[in-house]
């Protein structure tokens, strides 16, 4: 690539976006005619190249001094009207670089995985088109240098999520789920777009750098506008990242193909909200109230989703609720001001949750589409590699050292304790216990114990092909090692991300979260969280391996609670009854009564009145010519009489 020599790789940032877009275009236009192998290669290569460029960009960025690690490249003015200007420009800084590495890296693995997983599907090319488009949008989201461009990516990933959830559109549940996802996201976007406008009206610009520079001078800490901006932004984040009260779309989103669940609904898109909050940390820092809201909602979601996860039997749904719960952790971290920890957890979560989803996909693939855990069991001997990797993923999410999840989750709990409150820590810790429990429940029900598979399925059970296993292995490796980038005493990620936090106004030390905390507290917290995880695992072991009839007994005892949890607290039903149905009903009333009866009725009534009056006048119009002739005579006579009288 001689063309690239001589110029900084940072200048090539556009190519990170260009490759996936090219992939989309090629597959979208020609995919139908190309054979599947080529479609797969195009799809994967696009993302692979994107990852390579991202990596070089990362290297180049590292070469710069920490406080100069911001690179902006403007391409053209997208919308310019009066003072309002939205530029199509990209911004490379440590935060976005981490994000593009994760997105393109994990994305690449999942693309490779998909080649094997989706091989028999008719919509193969369609699938890769969407997936490439998704990657493009996600990269745009994290690379954008202003709010509006970010919003393009934001909506773009929502669109791809919609398309991919409804990928098997002939299934009613799938297309319903897609629509639900898009509309719920739109509710969030409603907040986001208002926030963008408020930002523009307040700062007269929507450029990240300018806004974050101006914010501390413009707004006082705790001022109303700062709170409004951040809360509205957070509404957007809540929608995209599936937090209370807008989380309901994510579990339904599992109707999509499993790699999609892994990429979009676990590793990348759903964490966009976290990215956005971290990106706007300057603004959030200005509003303690908003931060509290973020923390509380994050903590509450973490716990709430975890409880639902306890009673689900669909392997993907369990993972979906665990995703909701884990993102809750990230918001908890952001809410207590530990933005970097949130990103750290985002990264590790991307590794192990992608791993878990892909593992579950491998299981589903092996079982010919079965997703109900009650019909699995004892798969360890049939699928050894899948089992091993899945175990690693489970250990990571449960928070067992030295796996990735341990470091990040432990740090969040520590931050919740030191910077937040005991309550927040309690929420997190209890959720951690539940997480360990339901994840191992899943593991045990699937891979251990005796087989509950039907005869037919059991005969066909097989280990997945290499294209599926290699991504699993790579992700497993990342899940093991990923945590070390944030190793407590020498956290690489902390120092790398520190310049992003506080927009350069606050001291670097504020970004380095852990420096204030004494080592003893740190290690005791580690011990506690490990202990919690182990308790959870033991409980699961007790209930699902040692005494398999125990769960049924417990369920029998707490029937009502179980029923409520099993039905996800009836939230969907409540939404349906309080929002969806009344809206539709109101609309019907508006149409059938207001529109047709009242407004149109009024219009027609006017016409009717005119008609009635005309009925009277119509009597003069008999339709007989001689009658009209009589009128002529009448007129003539009248004229003569008048002229006689008057003259």
């Amino acid at each position, binding site marked *: 690539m001689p063309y690239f020599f001589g110029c900084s790789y940072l200048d090539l940032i556009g190519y990170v976006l260009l490759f996936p877009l090219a992939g989309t275009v090629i597959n979208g236009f020609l995919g139908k005619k190309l054979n599947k192998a080529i479609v797969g290669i195009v799809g994967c290569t696009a993302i692979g190249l994107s990852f390579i460029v991202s990596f070089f960009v990362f290297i180049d960025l590292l070469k710069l001094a920490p406080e100069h690690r911001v690179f902006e490249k403007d391409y053209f003015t997208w919308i310019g009207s009066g003072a309002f200007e939205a530029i199509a420009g990209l911004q490379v800084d440590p935060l976005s670089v981490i994000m593009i590495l994760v997105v393109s890296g994990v994305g690449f693995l999942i693309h490779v995985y998909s080649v094997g997983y989706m091989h028999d599907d008719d919509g193969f090319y369609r699938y890769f088109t969407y997936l490439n488009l998704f990657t493009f949008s996600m990269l745009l989201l994290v690379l954008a240098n202003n709010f509006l461009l970010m919003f393009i990516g934001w909506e773009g990933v929502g669109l791809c999520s919609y398309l991919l959830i409804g990928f098997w559109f002939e299934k009613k549940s799938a297309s319903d789920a897609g629509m639900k996802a898009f509309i719920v996201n739109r509710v969030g976007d409603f907040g986001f*777009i208002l926030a963008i*406008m408020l930002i523009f009206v307040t700062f007269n610009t929507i450029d990240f750098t300018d806004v974050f520079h101006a914010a501390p001078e413009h707004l006082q800490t705790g001022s109303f506008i700062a709170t409004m901006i951040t809360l509205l932004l957070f509404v957007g984040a809540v929608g995209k990242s599936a937090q209370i009260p807008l989380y309901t779309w994510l579990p339904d989103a599992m109707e999509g193909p499993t790699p999609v669940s892994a990429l979009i609904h676990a590793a990348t898109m759903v964490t966009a909200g976290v990215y956005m909050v971290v990106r706007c940390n300057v603004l959030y820092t200005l509003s303690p109230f908003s931060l509290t809201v973020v923390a509380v909602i994050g903590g509450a979601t973490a716990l709430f989703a975890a409880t639902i996860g306890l009673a689900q039997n669909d392997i993907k749904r369990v993972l979906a609720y665990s995703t909701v719960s884990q993102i809750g952790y990230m918001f908890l971290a952001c809410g207590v001001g530990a933005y970097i920890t949130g990103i750290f957890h985002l990264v590790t979560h991307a590794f192990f949750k992608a791993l878990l989803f892909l593992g579950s996909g491998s299981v589903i693939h092996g079982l010919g589409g079965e997703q109900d855990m009650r019909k699995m069991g004892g798969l360890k001997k049939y699928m050894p590699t899948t089992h091993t990797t899945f175990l690693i993923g489970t250990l990571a999410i449960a928070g067992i050292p030295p796996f990735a999840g341990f470091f990040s989750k432990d740090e969040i709990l520590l931050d919740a304790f030191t910077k937040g409150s005991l309550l927040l820590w309690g929420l997190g810790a209890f959720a951690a216990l539940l997480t360990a429990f339901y994840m191992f429940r899943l593991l045990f029900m699937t891979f251990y114990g005796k087989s509950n598979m039907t005869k037919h399925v059991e005969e066909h059970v097989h280990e997945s092909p290499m294209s599926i296993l290699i991504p699993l292995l790579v992700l497993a490796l990342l899940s093991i090692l990923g945590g070390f980038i944030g190793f407590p005493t020498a956290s690489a990620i902390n120092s790398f991300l520190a310049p992003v936090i506080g927009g350069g106004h606050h001291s670097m030390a504020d970004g380095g979260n852990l420096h204030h905390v004494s080592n003893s507290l740190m290690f005791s917290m580690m011990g506690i969280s490990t202990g919690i995880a182990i308790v959870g695992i033991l409980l699961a072991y007790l209930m699902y391996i040692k005494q398999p009839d125990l769960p049924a007994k417990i369920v029998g005892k707490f029937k009502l609670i179980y029923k409520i949890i099993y039905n996800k607290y009836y939230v969907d039903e409540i939404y349906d009854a309080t929002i969806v149905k009344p809206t539709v009903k109101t609309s019907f009333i508006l149409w059938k009564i207001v529109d047709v009866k009242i407004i149109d009725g009024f219009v027609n009534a006017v016409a009717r009145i005119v008609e009635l009056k005309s009925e009277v006048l119509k009597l003069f119009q008999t339709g007989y010519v001689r009658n009209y002739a009589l009128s002529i005579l009448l007129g003539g006579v009248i004229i003569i009489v008048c002229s006689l009288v008057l003259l």
Partner: protein
Amino acid sequence: MSLPILTIVTFLPLAGAIWLLFINGEKQEKIKRIALVIAIGDFILSLPLFFKFRLDTSEFQFVEKVSWIKEFGISYYVGIDGISLFLFLLTSFLTLICILASWNIKDRIKEYMIAMLVLETGMLGVFVSLDLFLFYVFWELMLIPMYLIIGVWGGPRRIYATIKFFIYTMAGSVLMLVAIIVIYFMNQKATGEYTFDLLKIYNLDIPMGAQFWLFLAFFFAFAIKVPMFPFHTWLPDAHVEAPTAGSVILAGVLLKMGTYGFVRFSLPMFPYASHQFVPLIAWLAIAGIIYGALVAMVQEDLKKLVAYSSVSHLGFVMLGIFVFNIQGMEGGILQMINHGLSTGALFLLVGMIYERRHTRMIADFGGLTKKMPIFAIFFMIITLSSIGLPGLNGFVGEFLVLVGVFKSNVVYAVLAATGVVLSACYMLWMFQRVMFNKLTNPENKKLKDIDKREWALLLPITILVFWIGIYPKPLISRMDASVNHLLNQVDEKYKVTLNRLKIEKKEVEYAVKEEKSAEHTIEVD
């Protein structure tokens, strides 16, 4: 410019219509080809307007002025600025699309094409007229072919729909005619010159009381055309009964006449009244946005759904125009174009499946994607454009409008933004019921995907949808000067009126004070 390009573009279709008159009605193919060639020629001729348009001036360009009826001060006066330029181009573009879309009409094709071409002349004329009288002539001229197109080639209830459409519109425009004549005489009284010249009338300072009534008269004419809630009920009926091309023109161009009228006439002629009416119009527009969206959600007929969505979209345009800032105004104008493209395309798409299945009921469809994948792609893109997905055209206009509204009134903006959520609801729900799910209806199993002609219809629109969504600068930059000029003009005149109001008030107060002091002195005496 020595070449009278506006006149040529405006009247070429009419000349074509006259040519068609002399062709035997049996020769359908020939007639269609001639009509198409004329439309293509007209569109190509209109393109130089875009490229040669000067960005640095807010004056009217490509102006032609010839005295027509000297005694009454009526002149043939045409010209375009950044506001009318795109509507003009949109018209010639959509007419071309419509003529191509009407290829399968068998019944009285000659008369149909003639009506189409005359309609085009009428519409183009409205956008270029700078003489109130000329404007009114074109305004009424376009009504008749549309009336015929719906009434002759329409659906089963076409007579009801077409009469409703005609009388509704007429009722409004008669009021406008009265107002035009009043202004004409006012201008004569003030300047001593009988003239319908719009630019001269712009300078007329109309007293406040008169402004109020004149604005109201224009308001009815334009609000019915837009249509604003609650004057919208002719629209669903007309759309449902109109043939595909009729719907496209109706939604794409005719509705814009109303909003264009507000920008071109109401605002600069009656700035004070316009400001006074803002709350009323804003609330009606917001009601239209939400109401249109909600009612669209529960429609069972595809065309009705799209028709009600127009009510919702045009609410945005109205809101944008009446916030009196550049973002709102430019967003509003852009949104007019966007609505013309995406709603026009939606009607085309609905027309395509209607041609195949002879039904528009949503319940009759389902799972069409399986049989018509390419159709599905186009339908998806246009749906998303209508929803306002960033990166497509709908977003740019909608967002600019919202920014403009937000700047002037937060409450309006918040309420209007709910339309963003609702539009996703009704469009996607419709899309799901039509395109997704299992293909159960056996009738639908025979469906064929779109053919080459339909490709040719949808592709240009789709390209424009992307272009405006990704790089709207060429459009916005051409609007800038004119919109700025318009806003300044309105602002200045408004301030003049306000100042006078203040002075009068002071005078009154002063007089009252004097009286009081006089009384006081008397008492003292």
